[in-house]
């Protein structure tokens, strides 16, 4: 349980199609430096470093490598890999808990990689060289990478909910409209029509190319500190209000019934901890590696009932201007996939009131909701303005 003792005081975002040969380590180091500068701090103020290692590179003790590269002498350099956006949520939660218990003061949480240009291997769709747990009972059958498992999940969604692919296209087009408003979005200048969606090549039915997120190079970082200290720093503090996580499985062969996925449980924990209701969320940043993810996540977050995600998207309720816009930065689908760290930095931009053309009016509470693997681990984080 969080007790509103920690706040995000600095952020950095870097996003590009080609980082010019920079490694994930290099990209993360740049993001840490930029976030610390944004916070009005020095690297010497950093007492803890939390990092998710680049998936496209093989590392051991990654956060320690990063600390050494930066010359940071902290009390801890912790490498995390929880899964998807839940990794970023977990970093912030770890930092907040440690701050609350006096383990450390100011921390930086970071993720970044050259996923678009810097892969050493291909084959599983994004490889790694790391075991995914799919080697024995999935990959031999041709279920390789993440598109195929998500396609199986999507087939289940269409069947159980009686939905059609028009709901997927509504998600994809909303994300693309939002990306047009973000200066760094990779698909900023690539508007998408219904015709474009219908004409896009199928990748793994029922998912077509435009149901899949856009690989990117880049990094994001967030500086977390005690709320009292935050009030002395230049940026408007963004307070951690509540968080919840839920683990059910890892790979798609263990997929539970849609109604038993962990997003609802994670959201309920977060709302309870923060003393908030779904109706009080002003902007939602949801992990949208595939369009199906957005539909399931708005349902899990309680923005609509189970099974109503499809109508929610088709009615335009994801869009800027609706009561609670979803992914005003364009998301993984159209801004670019950096593991969800930019969902967190976007939440901060929105709550600072610095989101420019995509600013959600009067945004005071943001929900970040994500999953890792194939909805095997779910997490929800609630952030708010300092009151």
């Amino acid at each position, binding site marked *: 349980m969080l007790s509103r003792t920690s706040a995000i005081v600095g952020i950095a975002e870097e996003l590009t199609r080609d980082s*010019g*040969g920079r490694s994930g380590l290099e990209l993360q180091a740049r993001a840490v430096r930029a976030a610390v500068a944004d916070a009005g701090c020095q690297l010497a103020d950093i007492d803890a470093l939390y990092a998710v290692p680049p998936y496209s590179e093989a590392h051991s003790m990654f956060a320690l490598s990063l600390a050494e590269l930066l010359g940071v002498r902290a009390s801890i350099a912790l490498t995390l890999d929880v899964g998807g956006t839940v990794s970023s949520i977990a970093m912030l939660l770890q930092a907040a808990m440690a701050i609350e218990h006096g383990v450390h003061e100011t921390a930086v949480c970071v993720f970044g990689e*050259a996923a678009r*240009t*810097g*892969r*050493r*291997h*291909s*084959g*599983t*769709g994004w*490889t790694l060289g790391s075991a995914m747990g799919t*080697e*024995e*009972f*999935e*990959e*031999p*059958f*041709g*279920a*390789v*990478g993440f*598109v*195929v498992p998500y*396609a*199986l*999940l*999507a*087939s*289940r969604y269409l*069947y159980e909910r009686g939905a059609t692919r028009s709901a997927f296209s509504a998600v994809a087009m909303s994300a693309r409209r939002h990306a047009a408003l973000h200066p760094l979005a990779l698909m900023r200048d690539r508007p998408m029509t219904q015709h474009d969606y219908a004409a896009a*090549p*199928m*990748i*793994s*039915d*029922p*998912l077509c190319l435009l149901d899949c997120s856009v690989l990117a190079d880049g990094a994001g970082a967030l500086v977390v500190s005690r709320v009292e200290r935050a009030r002395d720093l230049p940026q408007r503090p963004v307070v951690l209000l509540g968080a919840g996580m839920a683990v059910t499985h890892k790979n*798609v*062969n*263990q*997929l539970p019934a849609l109604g038993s996925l962990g997003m609802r449980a994670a959201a309920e924990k977060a709302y309870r901890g923060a003393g908030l209701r779904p109706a009080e969320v002003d902007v939602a940043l949801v992990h949208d590696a595939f369009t199906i993810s957005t539909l399931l996540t708005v349902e899990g977050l309680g923005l609509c009932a189970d099974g109503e995600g499809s109508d929610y998207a088709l009615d335009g309720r994801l869009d800027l201007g609706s009561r609670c816009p979803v992914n005003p930065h364009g998301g993984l689908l159209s801004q670019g996939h950096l593991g969800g760290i930019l969902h967190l930095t976007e939440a901060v931009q929105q709550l600072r009131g610095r989101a420019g053309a995509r600013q959600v009016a009067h945004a005071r509470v943001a929900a970040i909701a994500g999953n890792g693997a194939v909805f095997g681990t779910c997490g929800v984080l609630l952030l708010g303005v300092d009151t």
Partner: protein
Amino acid sequence: VTAPKPQRMATKPVPEPTVASRPFWAGCAAGELRLPRCRDCRVVHFYPRSFCPACGGADLEWIRSRGTGTVHATTVVRRPFWGDAFAEDVPYNVVLVALDEGITMLSAVVGVPAESVYIGMPVAVEFVPRGEISLPLFRPREIDPSGDRAEQR
């Protein structure tokens, strides 16, 4: 700066049996689909583990599955994600099969066009060799009109 050219996989992956899964793959080689069952709570599980994921029990036995079930989820894969190994197979089918014993496994329905596979389709196992392994794949099966329950749509 030029990014390194990604390595591409040229051959299809072959399962490597583990201590926990060796009896399963031995069953496939013998033409039997064997599933682990807990002697304490009687729950059948898949994939094979050394401990029951339902109750934590370590006293497991192997039962012979009927090898029948229905398609729980389905996709047609149209891009070869595994380098060149599946390039000649696309479009190919991948499914989750709900077996009559109550477990779900990932496999493929073969012998029919990939697009013709649907959720609720009754299927039966067949074993197809790859390397030293026999893979449990599935074929459509006729429904026994005397009351085999199949999720139709």
